[in-house]
């Protein structure tokens, strides 16, 4: 079971506690702290209790299937190395909790802090115990995310926001690279399981994808560990609360990178590529970090650069490829964690007590806080590599390794010098740290009067410093066995002989240590005052990583992206439509060009003169409509009608009477519709000046070309289709069964209401939806200011009418329709009969519900035109929305009626009913369906037209209200 495994709980506990923390009430500050302490302590204890099995060389595994298909399993795996790190993480985590109890001020949200902190702890423990590389990436990214949230804990500060963002951006880039690298590893190995991967070192190194995998994984590791050239995010992350820095930037987060390099060291190391990349990064970080640390005025900044430098040391060690170097690297990782965590916490105490972290303002603090001063001094000494402290031991091993020959490369020759230089600089900044803060004259005033912190706040520092001392003096008795377990689990059979003795005799490494210590101290004596006064580092001061990063980010992700977006995209409609057309023309033309177009020979009778004439008329209308649409809208509309008419005639000519009828009625209603709209468009006479000149001409020419291409393409395709021998189509089936099984002679109509009634079902829905949309839109319609006025004609006629008061008001309008409206009204019942005729005939002859519906709607419109909206609506109560709903329901109800007969939706049923006197009457459910169509079409058409027409009276109503006001 899951719960049985302590390994599982080591991960689960912090996460559970984290969620609990955020759920606790805001007042329960102590409870939250206790929760954090218990969680970390439990992890610590759980980890510690695993020691016996780990020490026996066993690898504890805990596997839960997650997505086995993809090789992703929730595999936890603990060996000595992981154990060592888990201990470090949970141990220092616990100390940080104790410390934070006193650090986090009452104004800050403790819940939020522990939410993030514990989740981070869990993620970090996940990273070290992941037994599956993908799972490792998961936890890896989680550490990035939670570190982002922790760094941004005081998000009110700009520095915190910027630092957090930069940290996340850099580490996330690295994390993604790591993912890619891991994927390649998976591709090479065939598994993401760490054990499998560790067993496939040779295979990986000899694979052609080794270099990309290596580069990507190193990208992940180096960014995480803030190694050159990705180091710059770490100093900016110092905006985090100090406990966070103590935890993340000494012991955990940044350690993840070197941890990973050590973890995969057996698999990836030993090649020239590894040596060069890792070595360069490590060496540069070592020296540069130490150099820049000297110049820092911010206490935490100094520690941050120092961290970069010390991690560089570990990295450099790992690059060397020798097992002994790896041992040293692992040892230094542990040592660094202890002294750096204590230093960070000490820095936090100083900041907490004095209110500043500025080295220039801090001075003579020893007098006020001797204990803290002592502890910090010891820790600094460990950092500087002073003998009898843990830092000295690993540094000694480091020197010993650097003088060895590892590769035939200039880098290898430079290493010892760089090592000494870095160590010397490290001594310099360590001395400066102590000297500047604790010694010298106390300043006139601190923001607060400093004193020693409460015992439990100082306790973690004390504990860690003691650890430095103990390890530094009796390494063999203390760390020795544990280190050996860790080392052995990484190196396995390659584990070298090494000794952790304090004294190895007068060796070259000792000499190097001495040089570094003396040189560093002398350097401080020489330039200490300069450092104290410097604004920015010498030489490299102008190179500000943060600024470069920000500039690059702005350039690439903001300005660059914006200009690219503008180049690659557009927000204007015309270019978009051009692209659409271009795409369609290309889509049609390319296959034809590639596969070759063959024109068929099939032809219905030769060209007919009248038909040609018809299309001369049609084409003339179309082309003129296109030319006139800009300045003469009405003309264009009329010409469009002409084109439509010719289209109708074509349908008629070519055996499609149904289409002819439908197109006709639609044509008529569309014309009315567009005319209704025309009233709200601006007058073209007051036209906006259109762009002229060469560019505009070119644009028009291009559009013309596109239009001609599209037209030509359609001509070719249409001609090719028409002249082919027709394929065997499904149509035969319809012709055969239309009458026998569909009960109708008009095959088109039977297809529409029966064979493919489902299409019609959707189609009327479209019409209904559009009508509702039109209605909705027009309810919110606001005419443009220049359209609100009555049309010019009405204005003139009104003036005329007012000039002749003896006539009725609005006499012109009245007289205009006085006679003709009579005929228009008398046509109403005729149109109803026509609609009924088209509807009932539809199944056997041209017509059908749609044509009937539009016809009926035309009848209504005619009444509106004849007598005006108000007049009609006083007399006829048309509820078009109900017609729409009713029509849809009739259609769906008819279709669903088939369910009762156990047949699929829309299955039709027809029979001949023998009525007395009348004879046989065909009754088809399809007719009922068509009734639904009819109802909907009437409703939708009327709704659209009337909604438009209502705009005119809305305007009247509005102006009337205005007049009253």
């Amino acid at each position, binding site marked *: 079971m899951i719960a049985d495994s302590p390994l599982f709980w080591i991960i689960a506990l912090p996460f559970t506690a984290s969620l609990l923390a955020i759920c606790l009430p805001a007042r329960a500050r102590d409870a939250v702290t206790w929760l954090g302490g218990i969680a970390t302590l439990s992890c610590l204890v759980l980890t510690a209790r695993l020691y016996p099995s780990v020490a026996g060389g066993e690898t504890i595994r805990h596997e839960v*299937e997650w*997505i086995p*298909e*993809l090789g*992703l399993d929730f595999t936890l795996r603990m060996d000595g190395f992981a154990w060592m790190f888990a201990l470090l993480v949970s141990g220092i985590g616990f100390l940080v909790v104790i410390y934070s109890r006193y650090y986090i001020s009452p104004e800050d949200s403790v819940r939020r802090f522990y939410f993030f902190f514990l989740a981070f702890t869990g993620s970090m423990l996940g990273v070290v115990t992941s037994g599956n590389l993908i799972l490792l990436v998961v936890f890896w990214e989680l550490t990035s995310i939670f570190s982002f949230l922790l760094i941004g804990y005081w*998000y009110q500060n700009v520095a915190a*926001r910027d630092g957090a*963002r930069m940290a996340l*951006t850099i580490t*996330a*880039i690295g994390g993604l690279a790591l*993912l*890619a690298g891991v994927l*390649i590893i*998976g591709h090479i190995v*065939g*598994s*993401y399981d760490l054990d499998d991967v560790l067993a496939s070192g040779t295979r990986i190194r000899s694979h052609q*994808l080794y270099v990309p995998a290596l580069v990507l994984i190193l990208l992940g590791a180096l960014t995480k560990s803030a190694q050159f050239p990705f180091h710059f995010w770490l100093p900016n992350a110092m905006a985090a609360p100090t406990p966070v820095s103590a935890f993340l930037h000494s012991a955990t987060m940044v350690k993840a990178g070197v941890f990973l390099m050590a973890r995969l060291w057996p698999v990836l190391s030993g090649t020239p590529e590894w040596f060069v990349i890792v070595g360069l990064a490590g060496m540069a970080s070592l020296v540069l970090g130490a150099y820049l640390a000297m110049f820092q005025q911010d206490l935490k900044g100094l520690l941050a650069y120092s961290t970069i430098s010390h991690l560089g040391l570990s990295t450099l060690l790992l690059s060397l490829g020798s097992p002994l170097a790896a041992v040293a690297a692992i040892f230094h990782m542990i040592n660094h964690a202890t002294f750096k965590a204590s230093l960070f916490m000490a820095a936090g105490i100083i900041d907490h007590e004095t209110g500043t972290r500025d080295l220039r303002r801090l001075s003579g603090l020893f007098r006020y806080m001797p204990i803290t001063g002592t502890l910090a001094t010891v820790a600094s000494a460990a950092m500087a590599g002073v003998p009898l402290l843990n830092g000295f031991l690993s540094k000694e091993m480091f020197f010993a390794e650097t003088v060895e020959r590892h590769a035939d490369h200039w880098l290898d020759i430079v290493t010892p010098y760089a090592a000494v230089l870095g160590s010397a600089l490290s001594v310099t900044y360590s001395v400066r740290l102590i000297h500047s803060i604790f010694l010298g004259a106390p300043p006139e005033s601190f923001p607060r009067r400093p004193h020693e912190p409460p015992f439990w706040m100082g306790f973690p520092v004390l504990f860690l410093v003691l650890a430095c001392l103990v390890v530094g003096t009796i390494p063999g008795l203390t760390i020795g066995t544990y280190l050996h377990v860790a080392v052995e689990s990484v190196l396995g059979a390659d584990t070298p002989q090494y000794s952790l003795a304090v004294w190895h005799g007068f060796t070259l490494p000792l000499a190097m240590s001495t040089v570094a210590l003396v040189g560093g101290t002398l350097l401080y004596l020489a330039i200490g005052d300069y450092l104290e006064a410097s604004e920015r580092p010498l030489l490299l001061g102008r190179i500000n990583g943060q600024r470069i990063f920000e500039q690059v980010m702005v350039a690439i*992700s903001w300005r660059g*992206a914006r200009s690219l977006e503008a180049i*690659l995209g*557009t927000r204007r409609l015309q*270019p*978009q439509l051009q*692209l*659409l057309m271009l795409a*369609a023309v290309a*889509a*049609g*033309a390319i*296959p*034809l060009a590639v596969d070759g177009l063959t024109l068929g020979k099939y032809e219905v009778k030769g060209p007919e003169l009248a038909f040609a004439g018809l299309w001369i008329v049609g084409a003339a209308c179309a082309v003129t409509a296109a030319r006139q649409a800009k300045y003469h809208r009405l003309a264009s509309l009329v010409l469009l009608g002409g084109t439509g008419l010719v289209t109708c005639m074509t349908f008629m000519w070519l055996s499609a009477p149904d289409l002819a009828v439908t197109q006709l009625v639609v044509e008529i209603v569309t014309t009315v519709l567009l005319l209704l709209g025309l009233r709200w468009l601006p007058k073209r006479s007051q036209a906006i000046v259109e762009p002229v000149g060469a560019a505009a001409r070119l644009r028009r020419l291009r559009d013309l070309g596109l239009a001609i291409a599209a037209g030509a393409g359609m001509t070719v*395709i249409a001609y090719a*289709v028409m002249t082919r021998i027709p394929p*065997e189509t*499904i149509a035969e089936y319809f012709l055969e069964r239309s009458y026998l099984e569909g009960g109708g002679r008009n095959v088109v109509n039977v297809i529409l209401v029966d*064979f*493919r*009634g*489902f299409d019609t079902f*959707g*189609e009327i*829905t*479209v019409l209904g*939806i559009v009508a509702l*949309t039109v209605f*909705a839109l027009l*309810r*919110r319609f606001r005419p443009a200011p220049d359209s609100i006025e009555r049309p010019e004609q009405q204005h003139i006629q009104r003036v005329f009418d007012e000039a002749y008061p003896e006539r009725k008001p609005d006499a012109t309008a009245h007289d205009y329709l006085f006679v003709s409206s009579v005929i228009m009204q008398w046509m109403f019942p005729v149109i109803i009969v026509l609609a009924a005729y088209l509807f009932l005939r539809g199944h056997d002859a041209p017509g059908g519900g749609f044509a009937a519906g539009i016809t009926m709607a035309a009848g209504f419109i005619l009444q509106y035109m004849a007598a005006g909206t108000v007049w009609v609506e006083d007399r006829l109560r048309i509820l078009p*929305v*109900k017609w729409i*709903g009713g029509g849809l*329901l009739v259609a*769906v109800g008819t279709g669903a009626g088939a369910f009762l007969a*156990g*047949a*699929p*939706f*829309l299955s039709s049923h027809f029979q001949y009913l023998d009525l007395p006197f009348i004879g046989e009457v065909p009754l088809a459910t399809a007719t009922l369906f068509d009734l639904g169509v009819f109802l909907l079409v009437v409703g939708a058409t009327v709704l659209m037209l009337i909604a438009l027409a209502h705009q005119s009276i809305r305007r009247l109503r509005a102006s009337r209200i205005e007049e009253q006001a």
Partner: protein
Amino acid sequence: MMGWTQHLLIAPILLPMATGAALLLFDERRHRFKAGVNIASTLLLLILSIALLRIADISPGPGSLTHSYAVGGWPAPFGIVLVLDRLSALMLLLTSVLAAASMTYSLARWHRAGPHFHTLFQLLLMGINGAFLTGDLFNLFVFFEVMLAASYGLLLHGSGPVRVRAGLHYIAINLVSSLFFLIGVSLIYGVIGTLNMADLAMRLVEAEPGNRALFEAGAAILGVAFLIKAGMWPLCFWLPPAYTAAAAPVAAMFALLSKVGVYVVLRLSLLLFGSDAGALTGFGSQFLLFGGMATIVFGAIGVLATQSMGRLASYNLLVSSGTLLAAIGMGDAAVISGALFYLVSSTLTVSALFLLIELVERAQEPGANLLTVTMEAYGDEVDAEGDEEQEVGLIMPGALAIVGVCFGCIALLLAGFPPLSGFIAKFALLAAMFNPDGLGGEAGIGGPTWVFAALVILSGLAALISLLRTGIRTFWAPVEAVMPRVLVVEAAPIIVLIVACVVLTVQGAPLLRYTDAAAQSLHMPANYIDRVLPPSASGNETGEIER
């Protein structure tokens, strides 16, 4: 005779249709009643789609899982058939989940922002479901139109200059694309003589070579129409303005609309141009691959370039479209399985983001706390009385924190960061790309695959950078954050969608097994054809759900 359960297949179309139509018969001002009916219908649809998913997934293995329903009792290929397989069932479920979320969200205020919202919403569902279910090319056009028409209405829902301006472009472009659709379909009919997709696939093999060029032209023009909908660069510039302008619950549904285009491309390209298609095998796949990758690039650039959250979400949608299209272009079953997982996850995420944006904006400016609806309806004599009633529902405590957490989760999901399903999805895609024959296979990795993989990863990075910028600006930078008035019905759907993503993370394996089976069966078009076309096409006895 058919049992009632066998009609389940058509229910996802009929139910929303009937609901939408019935709602028209009631007075527009009965908002609560209509909302109740709508939500009940949407939940029923959710249950229905779960049932259909179970039907589609009832037996193990990829084959013999296609169910067909001959509408009107006319056998395929003559009549219209609806086809249910794993892919369509998955899309149906996704639709109904999003619908339930959006619908709930809209109850806070949006459903009263204009007339007939509920009907339009239900009819949109009808269109989407129909597009997923139909096995007929022209019927697909019809359902596309239903869907588009409803989307026009919903996009314009609430009116206002921004929406109308965006709507004009959206409608113009979709009208043109509908014309392309028609040209493509009719050309295919003219050349091949059928409209049924399965029949088409079958006849294509026998089609004479002389007709092939014309068919290809038709298919390509059809493809342009779908790719416009799916949002492939350079046919996608309409999408960000339109989706940004739409009301939040509408935009959340729109996140699915572009997936309909993707769905159709996937369905048709594997059915018609699959491995059995002879000379037509792989037609257009290169184009999809490179077009998809271009779309990812453009989407990622847009993601980086934008300041507005709406556009951010839209561009993320483009990225996801591009990813899916390129994955289809790769044509590999494993990749498509990953892509389907990605589709589900990314759609849920972007929908959640679209819903969230409004709440976030409410937190940014105090004015937004006022009813946006009221502001827009100001001075409208028709709607005035409707806004008297207060918004319904409880006000969410701790809204800002919840909004922030949701935003964080969505950011992780979009960027494809662990631990949420966005990561699983991208990992599934990448793993399939790197290991086309499964982990440990021998197949190498081709050049385009490298580019595609890089783009998948880098687009996530772009999303991260942009969301980080936006998130910090929104949640961290303001000195005095306004406590937004967020109703429970607004926050709950977002949380539910995010929780769904969490579930996808934890229960990734079952879904991946499902998508795997779906992808496998897509790669066996013969199965589909056999199930859709009755053994003897002349038989009358059809219209049953066939197991």
